[in-house]
């Protein structure tokens, strides 16, 4: 079974802090994704990566950056956290078009 592990289930950060969300997958998938999930807005794609050091903007990249130095690890970075980035963040990986495998999510609160 594919395992996607997000390093934190809950995070509380202050406005202006730099925040790192880490995600690791164990199935050698080339594709990795970061989504945020908000009530009433559904899942929105922030960034994705199709290979090491490669990244593409999703639908809502503003205020975020990503890093993929190793195939199994995909990090989401909030350069200067703001209260409107309070959300559930979901990491996912995939092999081609075979469907997404999600981690359990990180619920981030920015105060």
């Amino acid at each position, binding site marked *: 079974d594919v395992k*996607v592990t997000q390093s934190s289930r809950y995070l509380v950060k202050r406005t202006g802090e730099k925040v790192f969300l880490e995600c690791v997958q164990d199935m050698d998938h080339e594709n990795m994704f970061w989504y945020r999930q908000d009530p009433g807005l*559904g*899942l929105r794609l922030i960034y*994705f990566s199709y290979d090491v050091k490669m990244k593409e903007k999703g639908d809502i990249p503003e205020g975020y950056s990503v890093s993929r130095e190793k195939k199994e690890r995909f990090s989401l970075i909030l350069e200067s956290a703001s209260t409107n980035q309070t959300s559930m963040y979901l990491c*996912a990986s995939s092999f081609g*078009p*075979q*469907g997404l495998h999600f981690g*359990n999510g990180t619920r981030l609160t920015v105060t």
Partner: protein
Amino acid sequence: AQSVTQPDIHITVSEGASLELRCNYSYGATPYLFWYVQSPGQGLQLLLKYFSGDTLVQGIKGFEAEFKRSQSSFNLRKPSVHWSDAAEYFCAASTGGFKTIFGAGTRLFVKA
């Protein structure tokens, strides 16, 4: 524009009753279709997927879905619902690239 629509925001069924969750898509060509389930506080889990071929697809946890091209639908079904099936269900579509479009979700409540 490409879209995935789940007409029901929430559905309540009795334990042991059958279930059907509706999903319609709007794409230029038939996309790859998926159903995911999300339990409270968890990530999404892939239930099943349709790429081509047999229009009735079997998935995990006893779920199945039927693709109907003429109706642009991909409805999820289960013959007998268990209390543990209470969750939110998402229909999704992709053209095989990196963008997956998700429906807004249907929350399933199961009553004893």
